[in-house]
């Protein structure tokens, strides 16, 4: 079941939104409504669904209405029309108290400019959500400490926010949202205020956390690179409208219109980029402890048809295909002999253009190997995103 369902969600800023809404439904555009009525269409009939455990990214330039859209989800901004269903319940029909409960129990939020409470220590900041729910001190402190640890800020509990760097402050922001143990995380340009290196680090950590926590994430960004890196699916917004929703690969290969394609087109970067810069963290199966069933479950979860197998030292043992795994279960075998070895490998400093040829012919991901250890994998989409976008930190 989808965790978040958004139907025809609309926000019009101005004194008489119903009038503008009528115009909108009659087919008038944002500009026409602005010039005729002076009212601004913030979000124009946005519809999408986010599945449980999905990382859903909404991407758009400033003024595209993405930040408004995320605030309509938890009603920090009151929508003009439409529906928002969280776990099937319409939040727009809720009274104040029910809405407060949903915000407390179901929706964590991380803000672009951190929005920490400057008068509270880091621990007190992270505790805040539990504190206002009346969770006893001992319990909430324990949960807060866990959340602080999960973002790697142990030892900073008694500091005040202004004593921390931007990246660390945003970790606090993330910990504050995690401490509430909500299923859903709303992240409003969470990394946009950070400098590129810190941003990349935070993105990687968020992905690692997400692998553990399987939250339903609604992530807002203006950065296509970030969207492609993080998103399971991406929605692209323009002038308050969602113009395309798709997987990163679909967005890159089949841009729905010119607007999207202007985002994705870029210079040939294949000569400057290295394998290590486009590889992503692999999903792996541990040979010594996982079995074929675990392998299949992971493949189903990630919607992939093969998975790399490593030993205790992260040494690459081979590639397991879903067919081989099924055979293994049937024949009750589990060992190195069922793995295939005819996949392509690259070293971390192989230039990207050498990989393009391989990527178009091979049906398996390319393994990036250093000293026999699996460092990462490269799938077609990572080459494409590398080519079209490059990396910020170059």
């Amino acid at each position, binding site marked *: 079941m989808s965790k978040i369902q958004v139907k025809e969600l609309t926000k019009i800023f101005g004194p008489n939104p119903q009038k503008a809404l009528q115009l909108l439904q009659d087919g008038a555009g944002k500009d026409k409504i602005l010039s005729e009525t002076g009212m601004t269409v913030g979000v124009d009939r946005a519809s999408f669904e986010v599945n449980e455990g999905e990382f859903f990214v909404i991407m758009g330039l400033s003024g595209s209405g993405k930040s408004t859209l995320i605030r309509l989800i*938890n009603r*920090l901004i009151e929508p003009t029309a439409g529906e928002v269903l969280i776990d099937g319940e319409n939040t727009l029909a809720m009274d104040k108290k029910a809405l*407060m*409960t*949903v*915000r*407390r*129990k179901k*929706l*964590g*939020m991380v*803000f672009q*400019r951190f*929005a*920490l*409470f*400057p*008068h509270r220590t880091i621990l007190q900041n992270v505790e*805040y*959500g539990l*504190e*206002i*729910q009346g969770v006893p001190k001992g319990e909430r402190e324990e949960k807060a400490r866990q959340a602080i640890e999960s973002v790697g800020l142990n030892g900073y509990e008694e500091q005040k926010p202004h004593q921390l760097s931007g990246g660390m402050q945003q970790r606090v922001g993330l910990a*504050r949202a995690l401490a*509430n143990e909500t299923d859903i995380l*709303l992240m409003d340009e969470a990394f946009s205020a950070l400098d590129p290196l810190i941003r990349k680090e935070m993105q990687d950590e968020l992905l690692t956390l997400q692998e553990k926590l399987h939250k339903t994430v609604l992530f807002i960004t203006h950065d296509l690179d970030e969207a492609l890196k993080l998103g399971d699916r991406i929605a692209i917004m323009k002038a308050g409208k969602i113009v395309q929703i798709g997987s990163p690969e679909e967005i890159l290969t089949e841009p729905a219109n010119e607007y999207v394609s202007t985002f994705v087109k870029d210079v040939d970067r294949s000569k400057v980029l290295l394998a290590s810069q486009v590889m992503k963290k692999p999903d792996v199966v541990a040979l010594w402890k996982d079995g074929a069933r675990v392998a299949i479950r992971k493949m189903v979860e990630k919607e992939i048809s093969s998975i790399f197998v490593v030993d205790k030292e992260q040494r690459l043992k081979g590639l397991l295909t879903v067919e081989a795994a099924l055979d293994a279960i049937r024949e009750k075998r589990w060992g190195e002999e069922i793995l295939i070895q005819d996949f392509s490998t690259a070293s971390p400093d192989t230039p990207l253009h050498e990989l393009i040829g391989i990527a178009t012919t091979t049906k398996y991901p390319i393994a990036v190997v250093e000293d026999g250890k699996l460092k990462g994998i490269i799938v077609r989409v990572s080459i494409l995103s590398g080519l079209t976008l490059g990396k910020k930190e170059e």
Partner: protein
Amino acid sequence: MHYFDLPLEEWTNLFINEWFVPVLGGFFDIISDNITAILVSIEDFLLWIPPEIITLFLVGLAWRLVGWRMALFSAIGLLFIGSVDLWDEAMRTLAIVLVATVFSIIIGIPVGIWSARSSMVDKIVRPILDFMQTLPSFVYLIPTILLFGIGGVSAVIATFIFATPPAVRLTNLGIRQVPEETVEAARAFGSSSWQMLTKVQFPLALPTIMAGVNQTILLALSMAVIASMIGAPGLGSVVLTGISRVNVGLGLVGGLCIVVLAIILDRITQTMGGQAEK
């Protein structure tokens, strides 16, 4: 320009004499009795404590909060008040200032919070505050005498009217200055209105609110002096006597005592505000 005759003076007097005083007089008597009781007990208390103890207390407070220079100044200043034999008058003034300030804060801060949270309330309150601050104080000293009689209670009321606006204004300002994003974060986590106020807005506005309290105290002190014209006891009446007898020396002595009190109260409360910031 005398096209119309507007007998506002007569109307006002008619209203006050025929309706206000007879009808509401009893009500004001009750207020008056209560304020008198509070004022007298505080005054008695301040006069009952030996001056040395009060001096030690204030000097210690100045030392801890501000620093040794301020402590030294307080010690010399209070010694001066004792030496010119105006200690009792200073304590009476202090009593009026304290009572009026407490009323101003009790009423001013909630009104300030209310007007920060509702633009409607703000629109109503703002002109009232302008009125309270700009209307020459003598204008409301007259009806105050009518309602509360001559003496300390009238002084407290007049001082309250004069000194409350900064408490309201700066509370309002302080809460409105809390960053929108911080308030938004508190809302996003599901804070109730009360939690928002007590856990986020008020603590963050506290330094500004304390600046308001500081202003209130100083205005109260200046008004407590003017209020001597309606019979308030204290340093103001010393100065007033100095004026009426053309006794420059007496005026100077009374005036300097007021300055000493003002500086001590100002520095101590200012530092309290600064500490709220940390």
